[in-house]
């Protein structure tokens, strides 16, 4: 197992946002976490990246415990995170944003090659190379956030609601990109409110409700589940 989230609890003051969640990700797969507003999806991802401290439980990556490391060390282990709301650096140029993603890399020639391949995958970014990120559209900023994460040459990619606020055409583009990333050998943990999209893409799915895993399993099975259909697919 590449990533093992083992019964973790995260609390803000007295309120537990995540109450004993376990999630596994195997190599070569797309795993999705769906759930309503405030279910604890982002908090789970942030805990994996070291942005939130665990109150209980443990997180292992490639067999090693990472839950006591700071975020920068976790990036160094090979986990990149495309955060909720994209969080590109508004006053850095597109190119600077992408290069920041490669901050820890020592293989500079390979990083240059990766920069070119990001521009090939996202031609619209290469057109805006020297523009500040804040001047990009929402879709372009999402591409930039994804490209920046790929520049770290991750072994695992965490994505928090990449479809949020984007037009349906752009969402389709993002879906293609996510498939490509996984096909390229980087497994993805995809957090989504857009359950339709997420279940279509994923190999395995978790449904969170108020900080707990309410359901998990094969996405096709969940698509047929009455509760999931009523609560998350609106049918």
């Amino acid at each position: 197992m590449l990533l093992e989230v083992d019964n973790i609890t995260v609390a803000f003051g007295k309120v537990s946002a995540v109450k004993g969640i376990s999630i596994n990700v195997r190599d070569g797969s797309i795993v999705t976490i769906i759930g309503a507003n405030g279910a604890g999806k982002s908090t789970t991802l942030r805990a994996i990246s070291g942005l939130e401290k665990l109150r209980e439980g443990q997180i292992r990556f490639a067999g090693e415990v990472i839950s006591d490391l700071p975020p920068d060390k976790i990036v160094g282990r090979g986990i990149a995170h495309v955060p909720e709301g994209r969080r590109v650096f508004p006053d850095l140029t597109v190119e600077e944003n992408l290069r920041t993603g490669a901050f820890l890399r020592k293989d500079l020639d390979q990083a240059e090659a990766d920069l070119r391949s990001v521009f090939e995958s996202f031609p619209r970014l290469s057109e805006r190379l020297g523009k500040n990120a804040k001047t990009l559209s929402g879709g372009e900023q999402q591409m930039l956030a994804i490209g920046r994460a790929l520049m770290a040459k991750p072994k695992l990619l965490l994505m928090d609601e990449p479809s949020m606020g984007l037009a349906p055409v752009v969402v389709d583009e993002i879906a293609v990109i996510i498939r490509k990333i996984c096909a390229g050998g980087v497994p993805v943990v995809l957090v989504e409110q857009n359950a339709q999209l997420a279940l279509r893409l994923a190999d395995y799915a978790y449904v969170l409700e108020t900080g707990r895993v309410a359901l998990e399993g094969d996405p096709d099975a969940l698509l047929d589940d009455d509760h999931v259909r009523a609560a998350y697919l609106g049918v």
Partner: protein
Amino acid sequence: MVELLAQTGLNAIYAAAYMSLVAVGLVLVFGVLGVINFAHGELFMIGAYVVVAVFADFQMPYVLAAAAALVFVGAVGVLMERAMFAPLRENPLGGLVASIGFLLICQALVSVQFGVRMEHVPPVTQEVIVISEKVRLPVHRLTVILASIALLSSLWIFLRKSKFGWALRASSQDREAASLQGISISRISIIAMFIGGALAGIAGALTAPLISVNPHMGHSVIVAAFIVIIVGGVGSLEGAVVASIAYAFVHTVITTFWDGVIADIVGLALMLAVLIVKPTGLFGTADRA
């Protein structure tokens, strides 16, 4: 009249030069650490006292004293970061309060060591460039101007071209997103505090032979630095430089033609006006309000 304007202009350039060094450091620290360092003016003061000790008392070369001020005050900045700001990382208000405590400690230690009276630093050079009968530029003032330009240009190039420069800018725009790129918040905070301290220290060292050195001299620059930063837009380094030049001009012109107190009042009024019209500062972006 032309001559008076020319002389005022020269004075303003001199004031803008060292004010920019102080203000840019304060902005850098606020941007990266998210802490308003109230003791920043004291770092300026310590820089001046390094010159008192090394140049005036020990009679070492002035250049050596200035270099010592840069390194020593930079190190004091790093000490502040490790001892105060790092443990209070999740609590920027706590960092601010701690910095006020540090300010008082600095003033007390310097007073104990050097006394509260004004220190006289002997002039490094008495030479004056005479441009015309009424327009004169003391060579030491020219040195301050040129050194400030050199330092600020180096900082600019560092921020634009180097990997750690990018990391500083990225961290000042979004610290958490920066940490998700593998940038260590601890290390980047140390770098920011070193640069901020070093710039304040060298500003104090550069001006020490020209102003009255005393344990409370940090006050005057910190008030001006805050005005500059608020006018320029909190968090914008470019804004701090432009605003400090603008402020120094306004201040010097008003002091020359009217009075220093009126100049301070105008500066504060300017700050209020900017806050009312554009709360993010002239050069600030919305997300940094």
